[in-house]
C-alpha cells in the first residue's frame, strides 16, 4: 500500500516534470497593447508557427500593469524570450547595456540592414543593441470631428483657440461635453510642450538631477492645467475618477463623444478611434505653436521596441520570430500599422505597395505632421518616470478636490519630484 502510494506520487511528479521540459521548447513572446494589436500579432504568430513549425506562447496585456509584470519576471529571470519594450525602460533594466541580449550578435537570424543607424542608436547602450525600435511616435492632438462640428467650431490652431473652445462646448452641447480629455500623464506632456515653446527649456535637467524650471515656472505649469479645467477645456481629474479606474478609451464618455479630443501618441491613436460610436470619427488636429517658438516641445521617442532576453535559452529562435515580424513580407503585412509606421525601410515599401500606408490612417498622417515639426529640445528618458507621473497626478487631483492651491500643488510636486529625480538619475 505504502509502496503503491509512493510510486503513484513519484509517477505524478515525473509527469509534472516532463510537462515542464516540453514547455521549455516553446518560445515566449510578450507585448502590451489594445485589441487590434493583440489580434494582428496573434495572427502574425500563427503564420510564423505554420511556416516554421515552432511553437510560440504569446503573453499580452493592456498597458496598465504590464511594466510591473515584466519587472517581476525580469527580477526572477523568467521573462519571455522576446519582449516588446518601452524606450524609458532601458535605463531601468539595462543601465550598462547588459540587461538584454545584444541584438547585433544575432545578425545571422536578424537582419538590421533596413534600419537607419540613427534609429538603432536609440536602442543602443555602450555599443550593445539592447532594443530594436519599431517606429517613432509623439503626442499630438486628435479631435472628434463629429462633435466639434456639432459645437460649430474648427479645430484649434493656437493654444488660445483651444482654451476658448471650452466655454463654446459647454454652451452649445452642455456641461458633459469637453473639447479635450486629459489624464495626468497627458497633462504633464502637453504642458511641457507649451513650456518648451515659451521658454525653450525642457522640464528635467538631467545633468543636475533636478527640474530645469524655476519655482515660478512650475506654478505656471500647474496653473495651465487649472485654467483648462476652469475653462471647461478638459474634465477635471475628479470628474474622470467618478467613472472608475479604467483605460480612457473604455470610458463611456469617450465612446459616445462627450470627451471630444486627445493629446495622444500617434502610434496608439487607432484604438481610441476604433472605440468611437459610429458614425463619429477622429481626425488629426493642427499642432499649436506659440509665436517665435524655436521648438514644438513634442514628446518624441521610439514608439516601442523589441528586446530579447539575456536569459533566453533560444535567442536565435527569438531573433527569427522578430525577423519575421519586422523584415519578412508576410509578417509585415499581417502586422500592418499596429505598432506604428515602421522605421524599417523595406516594411514601409511593402505597406505602401499594398495600400496600408496611406494618409487616411491617423497614425500615418500624425507621423507626417510630427516629421514636419521642429524638435530641438529632446525629452529626458526620466520624464516618463512612473513615480514622477503618479506624483503629478496626485497633485492635480488634490487641486481638483480643493485640498491644495495651485501654488501648494506646484511646490509639493517640485520638492518631492526632485527627490524622485535624484534617486532615478544615477550618477
Amino acid at each position, binding site marked *: 500500500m505504502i509502496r503503491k502510494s509512493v510510486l503513484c506520487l513519484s509517477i505524478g511528479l515525473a509527469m509534472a516534470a516532463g510537462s515542464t521540459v516540453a514547455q521549455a521548447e516553446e518560445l515566449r513572446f510578450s507585448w502590451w497593447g489594445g485589441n487590434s494589436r493583440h489580434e494582428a500579432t496573434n495572427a502574425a504568430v500563427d503564420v510564423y508557427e505554420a511556416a516554421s513549425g515552432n511553437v510560440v506562447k504569446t503573453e499580452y496585456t493592456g498597458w496598465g500593469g504590464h511594466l510591473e509584470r515584466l519587472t517581476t519576471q525580469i527580477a526572477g529571470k523568467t521573462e519571455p524570450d522576446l519582449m516588446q519594450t518601452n524606450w524609458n525602460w532601458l535605463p531601468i533594466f539595462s543601465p550598462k547595456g547588459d540587461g538584454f541580449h545584444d541584438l547585433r550578435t544575432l545578425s545571422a537570424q536578424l537582419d538590421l540592414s533596413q534600419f537607419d543607424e540613427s534609429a538603432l542608436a536609440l536602442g543602443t547602450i555602450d555599443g550593445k543593441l539592447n532594443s530594436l525600435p519599431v517606429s517613432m511616435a509623439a503626442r499630438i492632438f486628435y479631435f472628434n470631428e463629429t462633435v466639434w462640428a456639432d459645437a460649430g467650431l474648427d479645430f484649434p490652431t493656437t493654444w488660445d483657440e483651444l482654451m476658448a473652445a471650452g466655454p463654446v462646448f459647454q454652451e452649445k452641447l452642455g456641461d458633459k461635453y469637453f473639447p479635450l480629455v486629459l489624464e495626468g500623464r497627458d497633462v504633464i506632456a502637453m504642458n511641457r510642450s507649451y513650456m518648451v515653446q515659451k521658454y525653450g527649456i525642457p522640464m528635467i535637467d538631467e545633468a543636475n538631477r533636478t527640474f530645469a524650471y524655476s519655482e515660478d515656472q512650475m506654478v505656471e505649469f500647474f496653473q495651465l492645467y487649472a485654467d483648462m479645467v476652469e475653462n471647461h477645456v478638459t474634465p477635471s481629474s475628479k470628474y474622470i*475618477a467618478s467613472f472608475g479606474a479604467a483605460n480612457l478609451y473604455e470610458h463611456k464618455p469617450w465612446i459616445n463623444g462627450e470627451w471630444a479630443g486627445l493629446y495622444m501618441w500617434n502610434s496608439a491613436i487607432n484604438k481610441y478611434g476604433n472605440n468611437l460610436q459610429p458614425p463619429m470619427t477622429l481626425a488629426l488636429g493642427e499642432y499649436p505653436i506659440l509665436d517665435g517658438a524655436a521648438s514644438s516641445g513634442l514628446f518624441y521617442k521610439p514608439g516601442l521596441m523589441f528586446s530579447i532576453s539575456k536569459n533566453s535559452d533560444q535567442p536565435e529562435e527569438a531573433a527569427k520570430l522578430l525577423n519575421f515580424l519586422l523584415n519578412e513580407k508576410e509578417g509585415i503585412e499581417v502586422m500592418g500599422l499596429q505598432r506604428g509606421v515602421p522605421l524599417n525601410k523595406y516594411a514601409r515599401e511593402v505597406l505602401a505597395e499594398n495600400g496600408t500606408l496611406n494618409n487616411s490612417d491617423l497614425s500615418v498622417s500624425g507621423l507626417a505632421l510630427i516629421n514636419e515639426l521642429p524638435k530641438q529640445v529632446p525629452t529626458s528618458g526620466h520624464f516618463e518616470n512612473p513615480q514622477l507621473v503618479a506624483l503629478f497626478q496626485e497633485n492635480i487631483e488634490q487641486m481638483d478636490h480643493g485640498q491644495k492651491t495651485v501654488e501648494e500643488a506646484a511646490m509639493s510636486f517640485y520638492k518631492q519630484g526632485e527627490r524622485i529625480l535624484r534617486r532615478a538619475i544615477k550618477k
Partner: protein
Amino acid sequence: MYENRKLGLAYISPYIIGLVVFTAFPFISSLIISFTDYDLISTPSFVGVDNYAYMLGDETFYKSLGVTFAYVFLTIPLKLAFALFIAFVLNFKLRGIKFFRTAYYIPSILGSSVAIAVLWRAIFSLDGLLNTFIGYLGIPPVAWLGEPHFAMLSVTLLRVWQFGSAMVIFLAALQSVPQSQYEAAMIDGASKWHMFTKITIPLITPVIFFNFIMQTTQAFQEFTAPYVITAGGPAKSTYLFSLYIYETAFKYFDMGYGSALAWVLFIIVAIFTSISFKSSKYWVFYSGDKGGKND
C-alpha cells in the same frame, strides 16, 4: 509506526514545501530587503534603518495608514453585523431556507476576483447601474467614485456584500445554541430581543471573536477592490496600505522601502490582533466559563 510517519510526511509535503517556498522564504527575505536599497534589477545595497526612518516623514505613509484604518473600522462592524443578522434570519425553520442559505453565500464564492471588482466599478460609475436606478426615483446622479468619502463607501460595500463565509460560521454557531435555554427563558417570560442579547450573543461570542480576527486580518490586506475600482483614488482616498506597498515595490522599483512598509503593516496587524486577544477575556465566553473574566 515509523513507516506511517514517512507516508504522512509524504502526504503533507506539498503543503510543507508550499509553506517554505511561498511563505517562509519571502517572509524572511522581505525583512532583509527592508534594510536595503534594492531596485529589483541591480544588486541590493545595505542602508541600515534608512527606509524605516524615511517613513516617519512620509506624507503618503500616514495618509495610506489612515485610509486603511478607516476602511477596516468601516468594513468589519458592517460586515459582521450584516452576517450575523442574515444568519439569524436563516436560522428560522422556513420553507426553502436551504435555497436562501445558498443564495446568500454565492457572493463569497466569487471571492476577491477582478471580475467582481470590474462589475462593482460598472455599478458605481457616474453612468453606472446605481445612478441609473436612482435616476428613476428622480434623484440626480452621484459621483460615487469621484467623491472621496463615497469612493471609500463603494469599495467597502463590495467586501460587506461578501459576508457569506462569516455568515455560514455564525449560522453553525447559532444552531449549536441549546434549544433548552430558549425554552427556559420563554417560561420566564423573556422577549425575543432579550433572548437574543442575553442568550444567543453571549453563547456565540467565541465565534464572533473568531470572525472578527479573520475578517480584520483580511481587511488590513485588502488589495483587489481598490486597485481595480478606483486605483486608490480619487485624491488617494482609497489608497489602502497594500496598494502603497505594491506601487512602491513594483511600480517605483523601491523594493527596500516597499518591504519596510510591508513589515510595518505586519507589525500593526500583529499589535491589533494581540490587543483583540487581550480584550477577549472580558467579553468572550467559552463553554464551562462562569462568564466574565477568568479568575
